[in-house]
């Protein structure tokens, strides 16, 4: 751990300037430059071909769908779209890079000069975007034995299934004027970017599967200065929480260095799970990637008509959509914040779409389902129940077939994979029971609790609770409490 000063002390003396680089994997059916399946996982080296293995003689050809996705991302980020641009080779030797160069873009990005507005504590901050460019992902290395890193491992295995996955790299310009809010703005930016990518349907944006990865740069300069300080780049920042935590840490660390009269070293650092950053392996000299235009590919020249078409078909921006839904659903700001915090907006929207009332949909997703997801340590949308199923469940409640209490048991069954809500009701026999069975149970409860009956007759209405409880117990919960109350009152006339 490095020397630190308090966050307040650091930002009192210095203005933080941010820079964020976000990589996202596109979810196209095929890879960036060949026809191989583009999917997470799979038996190692089964989604490969001469092209993504970089075999001698093989040549890349561009996936038009990936270009389309990249342009849509650029448009959603208010970028200009190049009318002509080229790919470039980034040359470096590493065994996960089949050709020992990466096809990327250098000085001619497809998308450039955009921005994204984000909100922190009710205030809007504009994050200027320098560029969004296309590139290919590398394969995956597994180091076996020794240190677990490439140096000192007994041997290393390489899986090229991921090699050639289309990536978009979105780079901000230096983000200034956010002051002490810098870490929060960074987090809000990555979250907003994630929402946009998701709304475009171009990426699965799962940070835990590394389909969205962030490198966070920060530098400090004295307030009022115009000269940017030396920045550090923190890699391995792979959740929203760590974006904020890593930047907070770096600001405190750099602040300590500067306040003690030292100089910040320009370096790459890595975020450690235990809450601090560590310098990466220091290189003797700066890497020279020897970029040059990729001669195996022709320039990308999207027609203005096509770009206009893509612009016209963009979905509603997430922030606008949130505001609209909040109004339509009649939710308070607090309720909306809870929904966003639980990442439940789209799930609730889909549930409402499938026929449930907004408040009911909100109740299930933020309540029982959220609890089960946390228990299982999965994202809410992976909890095991679909929005359509939640709407189906609520329909059963609305029809009086289920009580809320029974409904929770049905949810348990659905999540456990026992089938649709109707099937679980059927299999577990969870339907609300009425008719003669309920009449019999009420009669039996009255008979077994004469003192309670007396109390009610004497006007002490609260005693009815004991009777309802007894009925529900004998019915194993499969009765509607309101209906039970009504039956008891009728009997006691």
């Amino acid at each position, binding site marked *: 751990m490095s020397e630190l000063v308090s966050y307040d002390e650091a930002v009192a003396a210095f203005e933080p300037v941010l820079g964020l680089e976000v990589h996202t994997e596109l979810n196209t059916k095929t890879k960036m430059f060949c026809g191989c399946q583009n999917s997470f996982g799979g038996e190692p080296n089964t989604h490969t071909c*001469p092209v993504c293995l*970089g075999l*001698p003689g093989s040549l890349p050809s561009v996936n038009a769908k990936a270009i389309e996705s990249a342009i849509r991302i650029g448009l959603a980020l208010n970028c200009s779209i190049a009318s002509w641009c080229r790919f470039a080779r980034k040359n470096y*030797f590493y065994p996960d890079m089949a050709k020992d*160069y990466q096809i990327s873009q250098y000085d001619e990005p497809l998308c450039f000069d955009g921005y994204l507005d984000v909100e922190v504590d009710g205030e809007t901050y504009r994050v200027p975007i320098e560029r969004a460019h296309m590139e290919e992902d590398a394969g995956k290395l597994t180091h076996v034995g020794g240190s677990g890193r490439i140096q000192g491992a007994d041997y290393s295995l390489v899986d090229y299934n991921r090699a050639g996955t289309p990536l978009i790299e979105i780079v901000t310009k230096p983000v200034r004027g956010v002051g002490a809010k810098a870490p929060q703005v960074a987090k809000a930016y990555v979250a907003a970017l994630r929402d946009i990518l998701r709304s475009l349907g171009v990426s699965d944006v799962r940070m835990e599967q590394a389909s969205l990865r962030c490198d966070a740069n920060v530098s400090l300069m004295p307030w009022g200065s115009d000269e940017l300080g030396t920045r550090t780049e923190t890699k391995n920042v792979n959740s929203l929480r760590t974006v904020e935590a890593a930047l907070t840490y770096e600001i405190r660390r750099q602040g300590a260095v500067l306040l003690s009269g030292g100089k910040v070293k320009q370096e790459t650092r890595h975020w450690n799970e235990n809450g601090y950053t560590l310098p990466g392996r220091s290189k003797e000299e700066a890497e020279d990637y*020897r970029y040059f235009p990729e001669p195996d590919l022709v320039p990308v020249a999207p027609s203005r008509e096509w770009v206009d078409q893509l612009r016209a078909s963009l979905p509603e921006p997430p922030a606008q959509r949130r505001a609209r839904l909040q109004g339509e659903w009649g939710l308070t700001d607090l309720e909306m914040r809870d929904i966003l915090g639980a990442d439940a907006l789209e799930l609730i929207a889909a549930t409402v779409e499938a026929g449930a009332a907004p408040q009911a949909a909100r109740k299930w997703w933020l309540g029982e389902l959220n609890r089960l997801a946390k228990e299982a340590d999965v994202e809410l949308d992976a909890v095991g129940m679909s929005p359509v199923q939640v709407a189906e469940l609520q329909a059963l409640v609305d029809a009086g077939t289920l009580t809320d209490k029974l409904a929770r048991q049905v949810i348990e069954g659905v999540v456990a994979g026992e089938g649709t809500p109707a099937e679980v009701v059927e299999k577990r026999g969870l339907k609300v029971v009425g008719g003669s069975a309920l009449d019999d149970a009420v009669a039996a409860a009255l008979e077994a609790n004469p003192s309670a009956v007396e109390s009610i007759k004497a006007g002490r209405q609260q005693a009815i609770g004991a009777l309802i409880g007894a009925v529900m117990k004998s019915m194993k919960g499969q009765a509607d409490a309101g209906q039970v109350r009504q039956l008891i009152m009728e009997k006691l006339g």
Partner: protein
Amino acid sequence: MNELLKLSAAEIGSKIAAGSLTSVEITKACFEQIHAVDAQVGAFLCLDEERALAAAAAIDARIAAGEKLGPLAGVPIGVKDIFCYQGLPTTCGSRILEGWMPPYNSTVVDRLLEAGLVIVGKLNMDEFAMGSSTETSGYQLTHNPWNLGYIPGGSSGGCAAALASYQVPLTLGTDTGGSIRQPASVTGVVGVKPTYGSNSRYGVLAMASSLDVPGPFARNARDAALLQEVISGHDPMDSTSLVSELPGLTDAVGKGVDGWKIGVVKEFGGDGYQPGVESAFKEALAKCERAGAEIVEVSCPHFDYALAAYYLIMPSEVSSNLARYDSVRYGIRVGDDGTRSMEEVMNLTRGAGFGEEVKRRIILGTYALSAGYYDAYYGSAQKVRTLIQQDFDAAFEKVDVLVSPTSPTVAWKLGERMDDPLAMYKADLCTIPSNMAGNSAASFPIGLSDGLPVGFQVMAPALADDRLYRVGAVLEEPLLDSLVGTSAWDALYEEAK
């Protein structure tokens, strides 16, 4: 020599189609010739006798069953060892790929097979196509059939030497800066560098991606045209592959040059050009005039800078294209004894697997692309490239084709230029501009100087490859006929030492 071997590819094809010759007969004759002379010539790196004879028999069976096949069906061919062809190793003349068996075919090889050509084996070349003499091959020397003590040109020296010694009627090579035209020139055969992008590079081991193009070798213009027609056409696997089609090439043969303007490149002559080469060139020009063409001199001032610019662009691309030979996935691996790091093993492998010329160009290219040098070297060279293109454009507004000697000299003695890279590079002085511009060009045999062949280069605009053949057919001399029966010819048949 079996008389069948003197037949042109066109004649072999039509005889096979007519049933008066079988593919098996001609294929066997080729293998007999290979076994008789290649110990001296050293053209082939590997042979594929069993599969070739089976393929020939299959063609014969289809023809016997009445099937109509293309004009080259059943004709034997040899391919440069730069083309991926499953079942045979592809080494690109380099030790670093020793024994590598490609799991896929290059597009042009597939096109040969679809057209019924019979691939007999793979031909020697300069390592990764870098050289003008085939002496940088990591495996063997190839000798010029006109004089075994002389180089066969390069990098496609195996292709040229196999043709000139009648081992096969057709071969397939690649041209990056002259690698088809210069060996064709010094061995007295026809070699064509088609328009860049008109033949797929997919499955062709890359030297310099923006310059490489596969092309035909033959003993006459018509055969070369037939072969070029077989391999050309758009390939979705190569995004630099052109969608536009070439005009008819075989149709162009025999149309003549009456009324044409033929431009002699002013910059290509004089100092450094052998008198024998210049006099043969002048005789050929006179022949064009007699065929009705007007000869004019054209200045292409930027051609003087082509060689220098080429030696920045080509090595830059080479340095990147050859990075993948790192021992991780294929090829040889050196020094992996469990104590060395990955980087050390990569270094040792590349140190041992690549030859001197390849290393020289990787170093040149790495330097030219380095931060701080890029603009001065790679950037300036790209500007020169544009200027060369403009010289061509301006010239082709005035003339139908440009012409020059293919190479300033005839073949030189083996070993003579191996210690002088600049002298070696100058063999491509006249051929490089067409690669830099992506245009089409060809070399046709026109005569001898001191008993060694001289080539005549024709340069045409992109997608006007037909013009090459119109000039070539007017010029061509049956030079090789004069080789057969001489003492040089007899030397081919001597037992290998």
